[in-house]
């Protein structure tokens, strides 16, 4: 992205936001940095407002995305409903994956935007725990991570690839086994937080979810 003008960055940013992408430091560093400037934030937000959208940022500040300005329109409601059902269908495999990664990580830190995930270390930890191997196999049969691979290594590779395709991870380095978590996890956690608090899941506290610009 070196050498791009502000006008190029603006155009690229708006296109990505309207395509439903979450702009974070990992996926688009130059666009994310562009949005760190409040003048640019206001510019982008102002443009989006003119076409019925607004700029929003995740609560932890790791990702920017576009939302609808007014939800009263029935066609917009339908689109959000469609979005919601897609997310809900993927929720269980994503939660199981997070739990698997959490169990394999000796420090017990949940995956957060910017965290590095090493495939080889994860595989080693999984292979040392039969319960995790079983969980990996179960995940490989879910719709989201569906793959016909056998053996922990191939199954894990397939799952990591799918997470990359869906924008949750970005592969780094030439070896192909180092990944970095994107701002999409922050959005997922916001949804989990809301649902968990409203369905009174044990151990989930209530908390606000996200910030909006310019009111």
């Amino acid at each position, binding site marked *: 992205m070196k050498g791009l003008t502000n006008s190029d960055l603006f155009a690229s940013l708006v296109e990505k936001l*309207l395509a439903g992408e979450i702009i974070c430091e990992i996926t688009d560093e130059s666009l994310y940095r562009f949005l760190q400037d409040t003048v640019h934030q206001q510019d982008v937000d102002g443009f989006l407002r003119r076409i019925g959208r607004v700029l929003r940022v995740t609560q932890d500040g790791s990702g920017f995305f576009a939302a609808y300005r007014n939800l009263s329109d029935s066609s917009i*409601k339908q689109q959000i409903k*469609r979005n*919601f059902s897609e997310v809900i269908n993927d929720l269980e495999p994503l*939660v199981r994956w997070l739990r698997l990664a959490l169990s394999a990580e000796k420090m017990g830190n949940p995956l957060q935007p910017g965290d590095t995930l090493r495939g080889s270390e994860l595989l080693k930890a999984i292979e040392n725990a039969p319960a995790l191997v079983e969980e990996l196999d179960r995940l490989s049969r879910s719709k989201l991570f569906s793959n016909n691979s056998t053996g922990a290594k191939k199954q894990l590779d397939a799952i990591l690839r799918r997470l990359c395709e869906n924008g949750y991870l970005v592969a780094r380095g030439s070896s192909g086994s180092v990944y970095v978590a994107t701002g999409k996890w922050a959005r997922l956690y916001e949804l989990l937080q809301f649902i968990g608090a409203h369905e009174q*899941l044990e151990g989930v506290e209530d908390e606000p979810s*996200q910030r909006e610009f310019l009111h």
Partner: protein
Amino acid sequence: MITRDELKRIFRLLRKHEDLLITAYLENSGVVDEAEEDIRAVESLISSRLLWRPDDSEAVRLTRELSGLFERILRDPRRLTVDADIGGVINNIENNINRYKDALRSGSRDDVNHYQGQVERLVDDLRCSLLDSSGHLWQKINSEFGYVTSLDLKIKENEVVLKQAKRLNDSLELIKVPEMDEMAGSDPHLRRYLHRWLLASVELCRRETVDAMHKLNELLFEYRKQQRLGCLIDAFYRRYQSSPGYIPLDYTEMGEIPSVFNQVTPVSLTGQPDIIDPQQELVLTEIITGLRKEHVAIEEPEVLELIGVQPVEPPIEILLSPLRQAVENFYLMAVDADQPLSAVDYRPSDDIESDIELWLYAIIARYNNMDESERILFEMTYQESTDPVFSGRLLVHDVSIRLRLDGDVVLNTRD
């Protein structure tokens, strides 16, 4: 009096049993695994007060003095504690200063020297202790509590260190500039100890402690956030385990959709190429070059049967299309003319070909398709100009044809 030999003996003992001592310190929290060690070595270290046995039923361990020495010199973040008993030390300094002043009044030189030495030692100890204390806080922070592995323990460690930092910061309040001024008076020795040594260290320690508290709060916030996320993931995992097929409520069915679910659905933004913009021509050319992959079928000419032709029959007249006929006529005119003929001047009527461009193409194509023996008879000249945007592109406005005269050089020329 401690002798040089006694000190040398201790160093020799430390050197001789270094593996035993290192293993106990690093791997067994100071406890010696007697089953693994030579009993005589252990006894020798006990008698030198480097090891001790709290009770017959308990294991031998490093003495507090020895492990304290390692902790202090190596700044081991696992063991460091913050000494915050500053009030007691200040009282002690104050008492010694009072006795020093009494000795000065009574003119007892030896007593003055003794109490001056006491004050100097106490102030130096306090100064070192303060700097060590803030240093210890940062040792722990920089290690990010890496000496414990679980998040819960990191939070607990962080809370403990944060309390120590607060206590240290509160204790620093006990050392007040006016009181130090009053105690030192105009005595140059006391001013040196209390001002230059102590107050400068207090200020440095205060800055480092406040920064440490800020950093500890930041770390604590991050650890708690991670802990909350861990609980959140666990809560959903347990729900999916206990209620297979669990699906959350449809929140989009609510009267007002919660804003957390508000994110745009992807819109595909596309545009058409602007083919009449000359500035895009190069890019568009690059894009379309090679796009057509299929090969154009070349029709093989049919093998015709030989037909017997009677020589008496008149030759078959092949009818040409009006355009081809017009081209032929143009070339015939060029043969008769004694000067170059302009294709534009001799363009056919609109009912034969209304597009001047196609007419020019037809003239050029006819020239190019001639046999070498035929083409050598004609000379074709382009009238052209350079494109205003692309300097390498030439725009043809007209072509002229003339019959080549004997002795002409055979080549096409451009104006």
